[in-house]
């Protein structure tokens, strides 16, 4: 169980206008608040620089917040940090194991540090560790990205933590390994572990029980992925066709289009509810585009994120 109330940390310096920190944007009264019940996978989704790592570092007792409270299980992050360190597993965004020690030596090191042994916890980490066990004499520095990830997870799990904090665990990992990784998290969750995970990949959001969309140090939405999507109110179309890159400019120029973003091989656009697909299609044909297909789609988490971001900016302008 994790409980966070009005957490704030300000990195903002006088010299730069770039915002840095969490929960201190503008003159908002409150900082970040949320709670995660036991056995839930809670995802913090947001772009780089949103404050995900800062939040996690505070919860992992590596950083002191300016104000607010946070409890991990029943322990306070400031007063009971010693207890917290026994019950959390933390995996920082950057691979931070010893490159010059072998897979097994790394694992043994972290086991000993937590006053336990590999043997005692073998069953617990078996699913993950077995995949890298054939390479146990290899130096950690010589592992592939996916294997490093598994080793890091094994090391974070070796003392059977109650709460697992994963800071962008899948950044720089191939899609297959990413999928495997989330499958592992699912298993751990079923075993009753509380998991706090951050990611910049929006497609991973649906694998969480609940997600918080984070931007500029604020949570702009906290809900289940399904509900976040259900709350999406705008009309969303996807537009495909030839010469997509220059098409984006022309779509933006169309008066009834509100937003448009490139999404790989298509554009996602939000439009006035009264607009008909044919009208836009005719307009684009007139502009000389071919193979145009326009479909109404259900939004992804990324669409929701973009929409919420846009709303925030609009709100700012109106002020």
């Amino acid at each position: 169980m994790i409980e966070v109330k009005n957490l704030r940390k300000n990195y903002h310096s006088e010299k730069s206008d770039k915002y840095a920190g969490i929960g201190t944007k503008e003159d908002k009264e409150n900082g970040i608040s949320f709670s995660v019940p036991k056995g839930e996978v809670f995802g913090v989704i947001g772009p780089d620089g949103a404050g995900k790592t800062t939040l996690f570092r505070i919860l992992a007792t590596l950083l002191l917040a300016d104000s607010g409270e946070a409890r991990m299980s029943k322990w306070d992050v400031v007063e009971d940090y010693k207890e917290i360190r026994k019950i959390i597993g933390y995996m920082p965004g950057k691979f931070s194991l010893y490159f010059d020690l072998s897979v097994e030596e790394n694992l043994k090191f972290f086991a000993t540090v937590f006053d336990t042994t590999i043997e005692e916890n073998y069953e617990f980490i078996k699913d993950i560790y077995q995949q890298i066990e054939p390479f146990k004499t290899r130096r950690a520095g010589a592992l592939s990205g996916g294997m490093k990830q598994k080793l890091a997870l094994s090391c974070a799990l070796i003392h059977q933590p109650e709460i697992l904090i994963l800071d962008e665990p899948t950044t720089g990992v191939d899609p297959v390994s990413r999928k495997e990784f989330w499958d592992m998290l699912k298993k751990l969750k079923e075993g009753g572990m509380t998991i706090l995970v951050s990611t910049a990949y929006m497609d991973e959001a649906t694998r969480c029980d609940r997600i918080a969309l984070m931007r500029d140090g604020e949570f702009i939405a906290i809900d289940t992925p399904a509900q976040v999507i259900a709350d999406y109110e705008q009309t969303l179309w996807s537009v495909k066709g030839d010469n997509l890159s220059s098409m984006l400019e022309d779509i933006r120029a169309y008066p009834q289009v509100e937003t448009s973003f490139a999404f790989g091989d298509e554009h996602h656009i939000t439009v006035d509810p009264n607009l008909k697909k044919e009208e836009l299609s005719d307009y684009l044909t007139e502009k000389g585009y071919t193979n145009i297909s326009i479909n109404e789609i259900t939004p992804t988490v990324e669409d929701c994120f973009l929409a919420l971001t846009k709303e925030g900016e609009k709100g700012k302008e109106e002020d």
Partner: protein
Amino acid sequence: MGTLKFLIEKEFKQTLRNSIIPKLIVGYPIMVMLIFPWAINFEVKNIKVSVVDHNNSVYSQRLIQKVDASKYFIINNITSSYDEAMVDIEKTNADIILEIQPFFDKNIVKNKTADVMLSANSVDGTRGLLGNAYLSQILNDYSSELRSELAHTDMSPKHKMSAINIIPQYKFNENLDYKVFMIPALMVMMVTLICGILPALNIVSEKENGTIQQINVTPISKYQFILAKLIPYWIIGFIILSIAFVVVGLLYGIWPAGGFFPLYISSLVFIVGISGLGLIISNYSETLQQAMFLAFFFILIIILLSGLFTPIASMPKWAQIVAYSNPLSYFMEIMRMVYLKGSSYRGIANPLLFLTAFAVGFNTWAVLSYRKR
């Protein structure tokens, strides 16, 4: 305790796995003791002299022979023109010009005094100065030699000289061998480099790799972590010193006159202190580059202002103050006292006390500035 032992084991494992450091631990002291005592030597030898002999007499010839016979001087050129000698200096073929006046022999016999002129090239100050001093000494010898000869021919009492013969006796380094003076200092320098810089770099590289974060979220206390970082380097410091002791003993036949025990005790105190300094450096730097530069900055200062190369007593007042607030000065003093003079605990009590104060001070600062709860 078990955790600490395991952490130290891990450090040793990593150190031994390093491709350079284990070789360095053995090779460094041997190299330093083998080469540096010969190279770092302030004795001035082979000073080249150009003689301008305007006199060309028996007396001037004898003087030239006398200079040539000295092991310090090489007669480069004998001319009769000062300008030609100056060209030698300009071409760096000569360090000193010895100019003998035209009526040198007549003046000696008639007036009992004669002038010669010494001009030394002082671009290299030590060489010019010492060369001048040595040459003056030869001239003095020669003049007293002449005096006694002339006194034989002229027995009038006013020429009778009461000569004071000074026989110097150099204690603790009888032959004024510079190597003997340098060796303890080189040992100090080696230990400073290894035990001051390496732990600092080690800790900062954990910062750079991010492993320190992983350590920080574990229940390891900061004392355990710091001790586990330092103890291996204390041990490495001892190994290096021991190798150096043996090499010096076998190669130069110099064994510590005061015995090994006071040496090891004061080394322990010094190593603890200097690794504390390394730790402070690591606490204030985020990257290896920063740590490297900071370490070199401070270690260069404490080495140069320690009396390693130049005696503290001849430094300006402010530099003396710096030197006396420098742990290296005290360790150097102890090493030289024990190695050469054979001092025992009573003799080294004072500097040892200062060393202890530094060790406590540095390490307190290091622990306080280490940012882990």
